[in-house]
Every structure is written in structure tokens, then in C-alpha cells.
């Protein structure tokens, strides 16, 4: 095996130190060993290569701050209070809405509205299936239906906002740390 140049030795030092070179190419490993016997500079590099993993393992870092765990636990705390309050608001909203409806039309009025709406829908369904002509629906009923659809859409949007609030929030770690 021919002698190795210093540049080549430097490239092979890590596989040599790990023992990979001896397994993959025993001849080159022997040549490298011979080179180290005669070259002071490469021997110094070899010493560095040998000691480096130990120095890495011995590396010390500062201790984690006391606030770390409490910060993490705050970040993952389930059901933030604001979210619970927002959900809780739905109850008075529903109660108030029912009261207003009852006050404006009375229970009889409500049931009349419901049965009128139902017969309108039935008429539309028959018309859609070809079993009956297009029914004449009072303008007031059409407006009421439109208002109902709008109310449902707004309520769905409101609920989707509340549902997002309920998910575990992405914590603003910087804010929390500096607070």
C-alpha cells in the first residue's frame, strides 16, 4: 500500500477513528496508521478527532429556567375561560330570542307560522316532483323564509367562531415568556 498524503489522511480521519475504515479498507487503514507514526501535524489532528466525541458529550448547557414548565402548562391549558364565557352566552341569547318571538306573536302565532311554513314547503315539494302546479306563496311567507335562512346562516357562522375558540390555541410563546 502506497504512503498517504496528509490531505488524504485528514479526509479519512473520522472513518478511521470510528473503525469504519478498517472494516471497509484495511490496507488504507494500515497506511494511515503508518502515516500517523511519522507526521506530527496529522497526529495532532488525529488527537482532535479522537477527543471530539468526548468533548461533545461533555458539553454543558445552562439549566432551563423555572418558568419553563409553568409556561408550557399554561400554553396547553384546556378550555380557556373566554371560550367558556362565549359558549355560555348562547343560553341567554336563545332565551331572549324565544321571549321576543313569543312576545311578538304569542304561542298561537308561532304555531300558525310553523304550520304555514310547513304547508308552503310541502307545496314546493309537490311542485318540484311534478305532482302539483307552482303554489302561490304569500309574500310575507317568502320574506319569513328568507329571514329564517339568514338567521340560520348567521347562527352557523357564530357557532363556527365559537368552535374555533374552543380549540387549543396556538400559544404566543414570546408574549407569555415576556409577560
Amino acid at each position, binding site marked *: 500500500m502506497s504512503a498517504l498524503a496528509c490531505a488524504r489522511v485528514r479526509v479519512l480521519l*473520522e472513518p478511521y477513528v470510528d473503525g469504519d475504515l478498517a472494516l471497509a479498507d484495511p490496507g488504507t487503514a494500515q497506511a494511515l496508521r503508518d502515516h500517523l507514526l511519522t507526521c506530527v501535524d496529522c497526529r495532532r489532528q488525529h488527537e*482532535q*478527532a479522537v477527543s471530539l466525541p468526548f468533548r461533545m458529550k461533555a458539553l454543558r448547557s445552562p439549566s*432551563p429556567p423555572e418558568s419553563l414548565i409553568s409556561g*408550557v402548562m399554561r400554553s396547553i391549558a384546556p378550555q380557556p375561560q373566554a371560550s367558556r364565557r362565549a359558549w355560555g352566552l348562547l343560553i341567554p341569547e336563545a332565551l331572549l330570542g324565544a321571549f321576543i318571538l313569543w312576545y311578538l306573536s304569542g304561542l298561537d302565532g308561532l304555531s300558525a307560522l310553523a304550520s304555514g311554513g310547513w304547508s308552503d314547503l310541502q307545496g314546493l315539494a309537490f311542485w318540484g316532483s311534478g305532482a302539483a302546479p307552482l303554489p302561490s306563496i304569500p309574500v310575507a311567507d317568502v320574506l319569513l323564509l328568507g329571514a329564517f335562512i339568514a338567521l340560520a346562516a348567521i347562527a352557523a357562522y357564530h357557532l363556527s367562531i365559537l368552535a374555533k375558540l374552543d380549540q387549543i390555541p396556538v400559544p404566543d410563546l414570546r408574549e407569555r415568556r415576556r409577560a
Partner: protein
Amino acid sequence: MHAQAAAEALPMTGLPDARAAAGQLIRQATGGDLEAFEELVRRLQRRVYGFAYQHLRDLDEAHDLTQEIFVKLFRNLARYDAERPFEPWFWKLAANTTINYRRKRVPTPTDQSADQQVSEAVSSVPAHDPTLVDALAQLDPAYRLPILLHYYADLPLEQVAQSLNLTVPAIKSRLHRARALLRNALAESEETGFQ
């Protein structure tokens, strides 16, 4: 069952009793027990914070990254397969969080250069091996991450490879290259010191 394997992963498991306790802890945390999760964080925090600090060389950033890793751990616990060892799964999550954390850091006009950050960090925290700390800080993150996972977090090569989605030969090659770069930096620094 792998509660035991998971338990072995945690750095407080010298005795069989301690291993069983750690396995139980991971199971409880996976089941949503916040107290068990807190204890899990308590046991992992030193290694994770140290890893984050050695990677970022900044105390505040290390704090943020460590918190982010643990929050991600909590959110992803349900995906952890208790039949597999905990440690590689956890460090994969930590490595991914670290890679993304660096990516989303947007440099601002007030950001200092890497050299300034290093010298500040070194001056604010006493380093017992300053030349190595400096050399490590100069290393490209693609090399620094496997070095820290293998030598600092003490993961075997297979687990480092899993954590970084690379093959074992690729990780080995990267580690050799990283160590050669560190060795050259250390040799240069020594030469400068001697002059």
C-alpha cells in the same frame, strides 16, 4: 409492550422500578393526564433545553423553542403508538420543530449577525469549552443538528436517522463531515492561540 421501551428512553431510568414508573407516566400522559404530562416535561426539559440552546446559542430563543417542542408533544401525544419506543418518536418531533422554528424566524433589521450572536451568547453564559462552543455555532445547521442529536441528546445513529428522515449511511457521512469541520475549526483556533 412498549411502555418499557419508552421508559428506557427517559433519562431517569436506572432501576426497573423507575422504568416502570416512566412507562406508566408516558401512558398516563398519552391518555390526557396533565399531571403526568407535566412530570414528563420535567424529566425531559434539561435535555431538550440544552439541545435547543446548543443549536440556537441564545437563551430566549432556546426557551421559546423548548416550549414549542413541548406544546407540539402535547398536541401530538394522541398520535404516539405506545407499541413503539417513545424516544425516537419524540426526538423526530423535536428535530422537525427545530427545523421549522429556524425556517420561520424572519430576520429583522435589528437582528445581529451570527458572529455577534455567538459572542453575546458566549459572554452571557459561561462555557466550559468555549472553542468547541464557538466551532459548533459556526457549523451549518444541517451538520449541527445530527451532531447534537447523536452526541448531545445521546441518540443512537438509527434514531438520529429516523429523526431526520435520512438513512444511517447518510447520517454517518454527515456526522463524519461535521466532525471534520469541527476538528479543523478547533485546530485553527489552537494555532491562533499558540501564536
